[in-house]
């Protein structure tokens, strides 16, 4: 079954400015470009009410100046999602009614921000998302439950228990992860070739 028809997988859109009192924009790497594209259509006062949380990752400093030039009310640059997490949680806890959430970048980032938003009671259907950049996947091993980040190959070795996992298209919002299932459980001597497919 193709990924496009896998109904457990979220459908991502294109960021567009929404009417709101405040705007929280979270992005990683190439996701910055989605914010810059949104800015082209945003009303003049949009970024005066905006908080940008950006994790550059592999993109390095490429987009930092352009994002700052939008003159957001607050701008935060974080070294990793884990490092940004306490700040993100606090921001959700303090958010008022009328705050709009925009998430752009890798599927792993979108999923994890959605997780935090869901914990804070934000309905996932009311969030704008846009996938940009790497198609690397977060994968949960169904056997040991460990999460392997930034998976680009099929199959992939679980970074926790070491089993060789088939990365399925079946996706859990609760874990913000794809499901990994042992690919050679029936015959452990059968080692299929590893291909780089999630780029």
């Amino acid at each position: 079954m193709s990924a496009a028809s896998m109904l457990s997988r979220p459908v991502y859109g294109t960021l567009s400015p929404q009417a709101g009192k405040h705007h929280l924009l979270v992005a990683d790497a190439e996701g910055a470009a989605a914010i810059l594209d949104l800015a082209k259509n945003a009303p003049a006062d949009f970024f005066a009410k905006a908080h940008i949380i950006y994790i550059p990752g592999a993109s390095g400093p490429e987009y930092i100046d352009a994002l700052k030039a939008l003159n957001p009310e607050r701008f935060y640059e974080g070294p990793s999602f884990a490092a940004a997490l306490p700040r993100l949680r606090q921001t959700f806890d303090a958010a008022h009614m009328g705050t709009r959430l925009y998430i752009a970048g890798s599927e792993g980032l979108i999923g994890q921000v959605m997780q935090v938003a869901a914990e804070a009671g934000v309905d996932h259907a009311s969030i704008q998302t846009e996938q940009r950049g790497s198609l690397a996947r977060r994968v949960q091993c169904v056997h040991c439950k460990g999460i392997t980040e930034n998976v680009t190959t099929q199959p992939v070795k679980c970074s926790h228990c070491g089993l060789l996992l088939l990365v399925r298209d079946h996706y859990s919002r609760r874990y913000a992860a794809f499901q990994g299932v042992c690919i050679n459980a029936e015959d452990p001597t059968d080692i299929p070739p590893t291909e780089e497919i999630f780029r």
Partner: protein
Amino acid sequence: MGINFKQETFRDDFSFRNSPEQVRRFPFPFHEDGYMYSVNIEPHVPGAKNTVFEHLFDVDEHYVSEMHDRALVLAEDPLRCQSLPHMTLAGWDTLELLMTEKAKSYPEHFSLTRDGDKWHWVNRPLGIDDRFTFGDTSTLPYDPLEYITRQSQGDFAVLDQRDGNLWMDAGIVTTQADWSLDFDIGMNFFEWHAPVPLAHEMGVFKRALKFLMALQQGQPARRHNWTMTINPRLDTSPENYHKWGTDRTTVTPENVGDKVHLRVEIQMFFRLPRSNALLFPIRCYLIKMDELVTSPKWARRFHRVLRDLPPELAEYKGLVRYRPTVVEWLSKYDDGAPTSPGFGPD
């Protein structure tokens, strides 16, 4: 006359067997000589005596041993039983339904005495005699869903109904045909069925959801599904797939009769009264090929179904490695004679 509960295993030495009486009441799932998905939902009404549909919740000779196997699975992996915080009331609904039906159907084995919210539950086969306050989880050793489903054969999913969909928000799953409650919990109806091939395109799930959302209290429904299992293993979970997957390479022409099992799920749907949730029990029945072919009709028909199964269904059900061996073995029992309509063994 009570049920003669057997002591047997579903792992290690696999001592599970069906008595001849249990073979006769096996819910053979094919009403014709072929198989394709269908919604196949029918009213779940008490059926003929000596069938698995005689009572709303069938208790059979494997009850005590199945409950022991469930306890072993839960001790090893407690994530097989989960309930999102808003599902506790549905757990009490489930407890009430299972206790009242068991006590009504099998008074020699189960009894329930109610004095307001002070309940007294006796389960003789499992040696349980508990008094508790209905609605007060602190008076039970487990949350209500886990407490009563540790005493009930089959898996149970509890579905919350909201936003025009059903959500897999609680359950206990220790005898599953290869799906993970832990991964799927919190998903809606289409999401948790996402990996099933062909059926989405056929509109099966849209029709099924529409039917289930409209299901009324007191009018339960059921459908069946099937797969195959090598060795009588109840816990064919994805969690443990790396431990049981090699079973599928062990089938030989000599051991098909004892090792290969047809696995039938009776899936039931009950509207729960307080929570408006749907209870979705999934009861599993296993039968060895040696036992199945004691009915000439079942042998002929299952041979034809398995032989003609579309490849993508064989793949999804995990039958690919051993299907040719089993079809060859079953062909000895198929003389080409016509089979009568319906499920019964003749």
